[in-house]
């Protein structure tokens, strides 16, 4: 609240004595409803986070991180999600390479070549990409890479799908921070006789790096929870694989499969444990991105 707002609030309080009781009641009633509504919004958060921790913690053990889904047993539990953890790291890594390359490039284009006639079109198209459902991205990559037999169901296809989702997030972050870099700095560089590419790459980009890193972390946090684009691209794999041309597991895919297959208490606990690991990872990346952007 700004100072001015606080002052007016104080003044309003002194006036309420002359306000009719019906209006006073209405005011208090709506205030109560608004507080109640906010409370209702927060209930699911506490329920979900609480239940994921409470139900998942029992199945968390060292084995859960060093064994694979192949080793899971319906009755005794056992096994783990190493295959999915490795798969998520590899595919999100692939997506990050693609997202950073195209995302930063496009961000530079939108911010540094703003007089170019293609700028408005590319900005709208990048926004359009943001709104496309993840499942559609999966279908497109299936049609593009797998139906055409360019690759089979593979980590590379999954990485491309996640990368497509990440691109607009990084474009937006890059464009916004580049625009915050003062023009003076660019002019100073140009005045020293530096060519424009060098001004952009060695002066403007480093000045904006923390914002771009924040955007990249947010992108990672967003795509690491996505299972929909991986269903028909990386397909999932209960074994640990490193070859990006083979089908590969991922954390959200494991949670999805475990939740659907769960029949025994052991399987239930493992599904919750998978959700716990996934959620912790995403909350951590989110907090990292926030801390970074606050420090800026």
């Amino acid at each position, binding site marked *: 609240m700004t100072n001015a707002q606080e002052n007016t609030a104080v003044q309003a309080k002194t006036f309420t004595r002359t306000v009719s009781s019906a209006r006073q009641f209405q005011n208090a009633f*709506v205030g109560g409803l608004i507080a109640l509504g906010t409370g209702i919004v927060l209930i699911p958060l506490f329920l979900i986070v609480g*239940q994921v921790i409470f139900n998942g913690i029992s199945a968390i053990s060292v084995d859960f991180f060093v064994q694979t889904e192949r080793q899971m047993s319906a009755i005794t539990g056992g096994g783990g999600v190493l295959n999915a953890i490795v798969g998520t790291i590899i595919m999100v890594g692939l997506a990050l390479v693609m997202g950073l390359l195209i995302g930063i490039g*496009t961000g530079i284009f939108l911010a540094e070549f703003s007089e170019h006639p293609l700028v408005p079109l590319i900005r709208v198209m990048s926004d359009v990409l943001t709104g496309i459902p993840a499942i559609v991205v999966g279908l497109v990559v299936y049609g593009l890479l797998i139906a055409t037999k360019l690759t089979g169901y593979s980590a590379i296809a999954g990485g491309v799908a996640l990368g497509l989702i990440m691109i607009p997030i990084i474009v937006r972050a890059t464009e916004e921070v580049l625009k915050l870099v003062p023009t003076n700095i660019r002019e100073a560089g140009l005045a020293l006789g530096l060519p424009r590419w060098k001004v952009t790459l060695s002066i403007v980009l480093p000045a904006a790096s923390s914002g771009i890193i924040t955007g990249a972390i947010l992108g990672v946090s967003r795509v690491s929870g996505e299972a929909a684009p991986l269903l028909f691209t990386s397909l999932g794999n209960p074994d640990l694989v490193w070859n990006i041309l083979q089908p590969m597991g991922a954390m959200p895919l494991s949670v999805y499969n475990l939740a659907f297959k769960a029949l025994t208490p052991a399987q239930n606990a493992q599904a919750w444990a998978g959700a716990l690991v996934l959620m912790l990872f995403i909350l951590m990346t989110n907090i990292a991105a926030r801390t970074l952007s606050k420090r800026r």
Partner: protein
Amino acid sequence: MTTDVKRPRSMTSAADTTFKNIIISLASLVLVAVFLYGVVLIAGGFPAFAREGFGFIFGLDWNPGTEKFQALPFIAGSFLTGFGALIIAVPLSVAAALFIVEYAPKWLAVPVGYMIEMLAAIPSVVYGLWGIFVLIPAVRSFQSWLVGVTGLDWTPTGIGLMSAILVLAVMVIPYVCAIARDVIQLVPNDQREAAYALGATKWEVIRYGILPYARAGILGGVILGLGRAIGETLAVTMVIGNASEIAKNLFSSTATMSSLIASQFGEAGGVQLNALIALGFLLLVFSVIVNLIARVVITKLTPVGTRL
């Protein structure tokens, strides 16, 4: 003498041109991507469109056994769940946004805002898992109670439209709330001060000074929320039951476009595969339209000075 003065390096630099070309080609990849989305989905879905004609959009019969592929039940499912979720989510989101911006002191507003944003960070599959193990049993007991009271001949399963609407409502709240917060924050303080000066109570300030100003922005946020809800896949797939028919009542099993793709693609072949890709194309078209409308609403209808 002047003829052999060297021009400044930066003006002749071939590197600059190369750099510009690289940047432009990287940016063009965004256009190529959007273009490919359209081409791949149209090409892949065409056999299904050709076979069913307008029946694909307006017909009710989806049956892989008899090779009939008409998608109206799922289009209806997407919009039913989307609007249902909004009916629950919008009042709550606006209330939370007003609480954060207008009511709560800073020490409370910051953590509350932070927690609502955290709802958006929880992955779809985790919502789905929670839906399967917590929400569905809860809806099932409510349904049993309802059957006991009214004597309807429903079989209480908990799986279906209602569970999907509830999960989606929770998932959409952070998006609608974030935009509502932004636009309410952007309402000029003059509006508040003028209303207070007239002797308005806090609620009257909000009702007559703030909400009319923020209305268009909030509407834009609501439309974006609809886009989110229509595209949401796994959480819905896990609780809706994926029956190929329009929901008969609030609790019956049905499917949305995205949940049907997720649940049938794995076993699909032949025309069914084409039909699912065609469904993906419809989903793409709906989400693009919804997003563009939201953008237009936010930029065109918001009073000058309060634009995002």
